[in-house]
């Protein structure tokens, strides 16, 4: 049974997926994580138009979205989420290797709630995830 306070992680790189899961675990953020291996999968899951994939009836608390993905990149996914009634106000955090100013600007312009650069160093990565978790925890409590 899926915890209703789950996180959706959209990332094509299996190493980055495992690292993010480890970082969440090490930050003691006890919540379920659903992984979409690309943009299409994430859209199908949340917009519920596929029988092959578990379409998620409850929306995640937050979506962690990578930018650099094949076929449908993070910006396309972000735009599609924002264009759809069900996901237009879903909290979306871009979690990417890119520190490029144009990517940060584009992310916010397309409606991301936050932008996190994935640090190479694992301790810093865990710290970033921890900060993010605390932020959403506070936000969810106030809601």
């Amino acid at each position, binding site marked *: 049974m899926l915890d209703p306070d789950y996180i959706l992680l959209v990332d094509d*790189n299996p*190493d*980055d997926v495992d*690292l993010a899961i480890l970082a969440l675990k090490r930050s003691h953020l006890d919540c379920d994580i659903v992984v979409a291996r690309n943009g299409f999968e994430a859209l199908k899951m949340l917009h519920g138009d596929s029988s092959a994939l578990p379409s998620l009836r409850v929306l995640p608390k937050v979506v962690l979205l990578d930018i650099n993905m094949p076929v449908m990149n993070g910006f396309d996914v972000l735009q599609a989420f924002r264009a759809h009634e069900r996901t237009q106000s879903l909290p979306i955090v871009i979690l990417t*290797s890119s520190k490029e100013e144009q990517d940060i600007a584009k992310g916010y312009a397309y409606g991301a709630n936050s932008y996190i650069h994935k640090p190479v160093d694992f301790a810093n990565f865990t710290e970033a995830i921890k900060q993010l978790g605390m932020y959403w925890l506070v936000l969810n409590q106030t809601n």
Partner: protein
Amino acid sequence: MYHAGMRIRESIFSPLGITTIYLVMGSLWITFSDSWVVAAVQDVQTLTRLQSYKGLFYIAITAFGLYYLLVQHRLTILKATESYTKELENRVQERTQDLSLLNKEMESFSYSVSHDLQSPLRAVLGFSEEIVQHHSEGLSPTATNYLSRISAAAKRMSVLIDDLLTLARVSKIESKPSEFELQPLVAEVIHDLSLNPVYANTKVSIRLQEVRLVADESLIRILFENLLSNAFKYSSRVTSPHVEVECIRANGHPLIAVRDNGIGFDMLHYDKLFTPFQRLHHGEGYPGNGIGLATVQRVMRHLKGSVRAESEIGKGTVFYITLENTIVAHA
């Protein structure tokens, strides 16, 4: 582009062509007209008068002819210049297109370097850290040592990638000049560096009161981050490390000096100082990749300023920065 018609035109209306026409026409006129006049007139006086009229007539006709030839000569030169200019313009346009294509390739290269090279490093660092922290039971000290060396190497490579990206990015930063005070910026950079426990004993003096610059702040920050991290690094092992930043005057122009009392370098190798990947010091005490000063030089080129250094082994190094029209106020 030249074509056959133009070449014929050019040869006729060239200085040699014009002179040849003049010579041939003149010789023919004198030869034939003289023999006609001599055959038609017997009287010497009339003959002399006719010769004078003939001469005047010839000068008038050739003056017109010469005028026409000179105009044509000028037109030919203008046309040749025009076609040459057009050819040059085309060539410049082609080169510009090539360059912008190259720039775009370079941009996407940097972009993919920042993404695709950092990602595997994150995996190397993350998983080795995870083994050391949470799965180290049964690992021999040698294995743990190897793992920490893997992490250290991956961290070094990550710094190298970041520095290379900064170097590549510096010349592309669109300069947005604004007026600001230099002292707080330098103090901030020094504060960040002082957080490193290795630099706990370093004494710092900043004398930049009232120094205001009109320049791109992000470029100036990159400049001081690199110069100051070098000053801290190379003075960290002397007995009382001291780093100074001040604004001085040389020949009436303001200069900014970044000075340290560190190990210095041999001025014989000065030509290698600003070359990427060239390091004048090796060994474990002074980690680095030789990109910092190359970045400094690129920043200075971008700011239309200059940088030079003076150093003596065992005594220290000073970097002088000249920023024409950039330092707008100083004490």
